[in-house]
């Protein structure tokens, strides 16, 4: 398949998603969330297509995409590990979990594994403060972590 024709197919998919929301400007966030899920991140190509479909400036759409921490404007791993770094999880020993995750995955926070499987990030309070340390892997939440348990969880995703 040529690049041009594959782009056409992707563009048609994006159009379908925006039409699902009636091409309404106020649905932009949901449209971006859906596309983020579908493609793993919002590339410039995706944002330009959305901008065409909604008849909105590209800059405005990029402004929204880059505002929210759960929307990616850069490629990310298939599984995004978000370790809570806010106060209660910090008191409960977040640092040790962070070390264990870095050692297990062989990457630092903010990086993605070379095979594109895991991205490691910190996040702010995820509301598991009474059962910290806690982390999210995509939409799933894990709590009462210790270094060993954190590593086991990561391995269950492989």
């Amino acid at each position, binding site marked *: 398949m040529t690049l041009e024709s594959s782009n056409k197919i992707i563009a048609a998919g994006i159009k379908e998603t925006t039409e699902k929301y009636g091409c*309404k*400007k*106020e*649905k*932009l*966030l*949901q*449209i*971006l*969330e859906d596309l983020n899920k579908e493609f793993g991140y919002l590339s410039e190509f995706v944002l330009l297509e959305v901008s065409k479909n909604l008849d909105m400036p590209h800059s405005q759409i990029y*402004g*929204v995409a880059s*505002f*929210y*921490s*759960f*929307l990616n404007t850069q490629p990310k791993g298939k599984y995004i590990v978000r370790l809570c*770094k*806010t*106060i*209660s999880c*910090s*008191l409960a020993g977040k640092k040790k979990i962070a070390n264990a995750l870095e050692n297990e995955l062989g990457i630092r926070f903010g990086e993605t594994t070379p095979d594109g499987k895991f991205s490691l990030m910190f*996040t*702010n*309070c*995820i*509301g*598991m*403060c*009474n*059962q*910290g340390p806690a982390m*999210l892997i995509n*939409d*799933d*939440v894990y709590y009462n972590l210790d270094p060993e348990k954190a590593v086991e969880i990561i391995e269950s995703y492989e």
Partner: protein
Amino acid sequence: MAGIKTQILFSSFEPGNALKLAILKTGPEIIEEIKNSKLRGRGGAGFPTGVKWDLVHSAQGDEKYIICNADEGEPGTFKDRILLTDHPKKIFEGMAIAAFAVGAKHAIIYLRAEYRYLVPGLVQAISEMESARLLGNNILGTGFSLSVEIHLGAGAYVCGEETALIESLEGKRGEARNKPPYPTKKGYMDCPSVVNNVETFCYVPYILTNGADWFREYGTLESTGSKLFSISGDVAKPGVYELEMGTTVNQVLKMVGAQNTKAVQVGGASGICVANKDFDKPLAFEALPPGGSIIVFNKSRDMLEVLSNFMEFFVEESCGQCTPCREGTFRLLEGVKLMQEGRCSINYLKTLRELGETMRVACKCGLGQMAPNAFLSIIDNFKGEILARDRVEINGKQTHSI
């Protein structure tokens, strides 16, 4: 003195009972009942709920909206998660009563992205209530209809601020609006909107069933009823507790088994830090405003480390549209780092204090106005500890204070 009376929010609840009572009344009668109960917003700001509803009821608009703020992002807060998980029908019934009272046909629940895993439970609760004719079309055969939509956030603490939340609902960046006009006049899609916290809606069915007088028996004169507290940190029994308004910090510490307590952060990162001398103060809007979060620190904790964690949080979560917040949070964090290195002079500390005071009045929204709270209260309570810090050496060389 207020103690720990029988609980309200976790007491028995039959879905639909309160709504059946509500539809026999008029909107203004319901609003009057809520006003009489003196129920105040449980999100932290404590605005009288009845007054808010009244403003929306009397506002002109093609449509009116009921919005439930489930963007619980305040560090140390997880009470709404418990309500969303275990008591969703209380929330939706409260929203339905609010909609009936103000004349709204649409309700939206704005759920933070971090709680996406709660969506199936909420969808199920909505569909069960629709089958029972408590939501949806022609509720209880009265001709009153209410659609409920779940709208997911995408990870932004500032969207807990009501106008930022509305901006986000409209698909924009979550940047707070200028106020006035308030959402009660121009909210979602420029229509009058009620924005209430998850917990606030949950009290509504109980007030309708048991009456405003009963609700006022709990709590203090200014802060009626009870309140959920998310308690974490250095305690033996962390978790969500329902306490009567006016319960003192000491009572809480005893209840959750906190020992050797050095300080208590009331109201999350944007709340204030309370030291030993104030542990007898009551948790109520007129004394220690209860946001919903209590974080306990024992004597082994370094308060500057705690403060630096809070300030990092605000630097990251500041939306950046107004200068006092964007720059202010950054400078305060920088100041905390200097203090950690023992390099903050008393003069510079004064300057930072003034900056904090300025932010309280100059920032555009609640995030920035509350951001210096932890800074100012920790500085005031632990000044000795901060000024007595050893000055660090960098690369073996002496450093100077700033």
